[in-house]
């Protein structure tokens, strides 16, 4: 056991350092990733800071506590002729190691409270999207954008066919061959037919609820997850800094296909998004079928999200 603790922490610290350097280049989960993503929103950066801060505080405490233990294990061995002391009490020491942790914890709680308060503030959002979790797909409805209601833009987002084929028990399709053609990303179980299209640089309010059982909507790069609970509408927000495709998954056990209802957020520049939204609104107005289909989640509406 002697040096096991230190070795483990060193390895973890080195691994983390490597992961940190590599982090900038990656948004989505990648092989050998050992650390949290920094993400692409102001909140996710702050969450990452809290993660790193608390991690290094723990490393520091670990070095001190484990260090003292290891010294004790070497210095006070019976085999080296150590004679046991008789003392078993020290009021000063006990007071010190009660107060110091309180101070350290206060130092962690302070920034955490600040970040939490900011993350909980959904006011002044410029856009609202309603997210509904179903067994086993997500439905997205655009509610308003830049102070104006959005007309009849909503669609379901299901696991992409390529992943669905490869995930069947006894299928001969390898998960390793499920690749996004444009980026080369191995998107097995992290790709959908119709991604959620959002603009960058806009404060988006997400209203999150569940249609049958509890789900949870998580895109690590946005910096949070929020449970999708039937009968309750939860709110959270994100302001995405840069265009890209950000992937996540359902994170509340919701039945047999819990692992097969991914989330893909496609963030595009605002001008491009405006065009996309107008096109979708026009299509909805023209297409009577989609208008009638909108109410029932069982039918899939066309959504031009892939291109």
């Amino acid at each position, binding site marked *: 056991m002697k040096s*096991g*603790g230190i070795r483990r922490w060193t390895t973890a610290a080195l691994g983390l350092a490597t992961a940190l350097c590599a982090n900038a280049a990656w948004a989505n*989960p*990648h*092989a*050998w*990733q050992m650390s949290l993503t920094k993400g692409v929103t102001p*909140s996710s950066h702050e*969450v990452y800071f*809290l*993660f790193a801060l*608390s*991690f290094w*505080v*723990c490393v520091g405490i*670990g070095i001190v506590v484990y260090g003292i233990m290891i010294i*004790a*294990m070497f210095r*006070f061995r*019976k085999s080296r002729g150590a004679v046991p*002391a*008789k003392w*078993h*009490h*020290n009021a000063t*020491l006990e007071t010190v190691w009660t107060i110091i*942790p309180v101070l350290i*914890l206060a130092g962690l*709680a302070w920034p955490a409270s600040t*970040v*939490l*308060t900011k993350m*909980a503030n959904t006011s002044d959002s410029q856009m609202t999207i309603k997210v509904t979790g179903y067994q086993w797909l997500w439905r997205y409805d655009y509610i308003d954008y830049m102070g104006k209601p959005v007309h009849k833009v909503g669609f379901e987002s299901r696991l992409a066919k390529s992943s669905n084929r490869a*995930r069947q*028990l*006894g299928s001969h399709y390898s*998960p390793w061959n499920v690749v996004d053609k444009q980026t080369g990303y*191995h998107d*097995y*179980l992290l790709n959908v037919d119709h991604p959620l299209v959002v603009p960058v640089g806009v404060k988006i309010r997400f209203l999150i609820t569940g249609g049958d*059982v509890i789900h*949870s909507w998580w895109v*690590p790069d946005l910096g*949070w*997850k*929020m*449970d999708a*609970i*039937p*009968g*309750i509408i*939860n709110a959270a927000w994100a302001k995405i800094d840069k265009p890209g495709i950000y992937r996540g998954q*359902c*994170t509340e*056990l919701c*039945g*047999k*296909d*819990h*692992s097969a209802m991914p989330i893909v957020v496609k963030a595009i520049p605002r001008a491009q998004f405006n065009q996309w939204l107008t096109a979708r609104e026009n299509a909805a107005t023209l297409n009577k079928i989609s208008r009638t289909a909108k109410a029932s989640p069982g039918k899939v509406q066309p959504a031009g999200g892939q291109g």
Partner: protein
Amino acid sequence: MAHAAIIDEHEHHGAPKGFVRRWLMSTNHKDIGTMYLIFSCTMFFIGGSFAMLIRGELFEPGMQLMQPYFFNELTTMHGLIMIFGAIMPAFVGLGNWLIPMMVGASDMALPRLNNWSFWLLPVAFIVLLSTFLLPSGAPAGGWTMYPPLTLQMGDTVAFLIFFVHIAGISSIMGAINIIATILNCRAPGMDLLKMPIFVWSWLITAFLLLAVMPVLAGAVTMMLTDKYFGTSFFNAAGGGDPVMYQHIFWFFGHPEVYIMILPAFGIISEIVPTFSRKPLFGYKAMVYALACIAFLSFMVWAHHMFTVGLPVGAELFFMYATMLIAVPTGVKVFNWVATMWGGSLSFETPMLFAIAFIILFTLGGFSGIMLALVPADFQYQDTYFVVAHFHYVLVTGSAFAIMGAVYYWLPKWSGHMYNERMGKWHFWLSVISVNVLYFPQHFLGLAGMPRRIPDYNVAFADFNMISSIGGFVFGAVQLVFVYNIIHCVFFAKEKATARVWEGARGLEWTLPSPAPHHSFTLPPVLDDSQLAHGEAD
């Protein structure tokens, strides 16, 4: 001395003859303790075999062994069996064996209740395991049994709820018995603040059990009426609230977490002084820390539900309360280290497990502090980071403490020394493989892998494979443990002395090894220097 009288008593009233009379009708704290421990070990292997299947499916991406729904059945049953079948009964078994010996009593206060609380457990687990044979399958909604998902499972839900009730009654009766024994059966002079820490830890744990098992029973009963009698406690469509279940469940669930760790703290506080040959540092602080942790455990439940959409004020409160628990827990860790400091240390198997406990439980505590920060928890919640966290505190915490306890007291129980060499092999292989198993799960969680999924993106493949390999080794190594116990009890030649360990203090070591069928039929005369923590001050 009382010894002569005890041995005399033993000859006249030994263990009853005949299997049925000795075991089925047992009212003896040692026999019942043994049955609890055997039961726990059996459940540990059943729950462990489910874990092997889970790690087998997660060995590589894609579905290889089973359908996703069966995977969910396995994760649910693994959790229920390990918590209610392996960890809790092991501590009750240890408490049964040790508390009367430690406080100088002849037996538990309520021996017939003791028999009943044990024999309800096999009944409960037959009910639970029988669900695999039902058309609706075993419960697959997670051990937390959240509605509405769990309500979708068909009639297996009724079996599940019946199981919870029977196991809960068993726990409540066990807790009553332990409280009655500790408060009424102590030898003269065994003041509360002279009791061994293990006894203290169980006294506090028993009160936690009494307080929260009825809460769980209430939660599942509401679920039962929701499913079969048309109520809508947790049904949003009927005006109910699925989140209310989570509040009630975790009001039970968080104290439950401490029910599974406080007796472990007690065990470590017995083992470390023995092998440091030095009294426990800060005995009173240790008792107060236990009480403080137990008290705080009632007001941190919502940290299991930071992502359900609580108001900011509630999240702040539960974050601060949760972080506060680190203070008494830290006191315990510092006191163990201070006990070792200046001692005369030797590293027999129980001490190795105790040291591994301190290091690895603390590691689980570190990830606990990270999880307490609400905004960061938004990222960690329901990922493998959480899985790594609670397996560090429950496997390298509770389970390691139980293993250390078995090695520590087995000579007293059986009258024979276990094989130290085999014990050390068991320890080193376990401690290495368990870290190969759980440490990479931190990385998986941080990289974005949710928990309770049977299949995952290829980015998570490498660490999952490493984790699975560690898991298979860890599982296999436990057979060494069982072999060592069987060998010690039935085949070992080396007789154990009454004291067993040079530095051992406390009343149980004044009894001969193996301990007589009835512990102290005459109250022992207390000698303060024989207390594990030195003279109380």
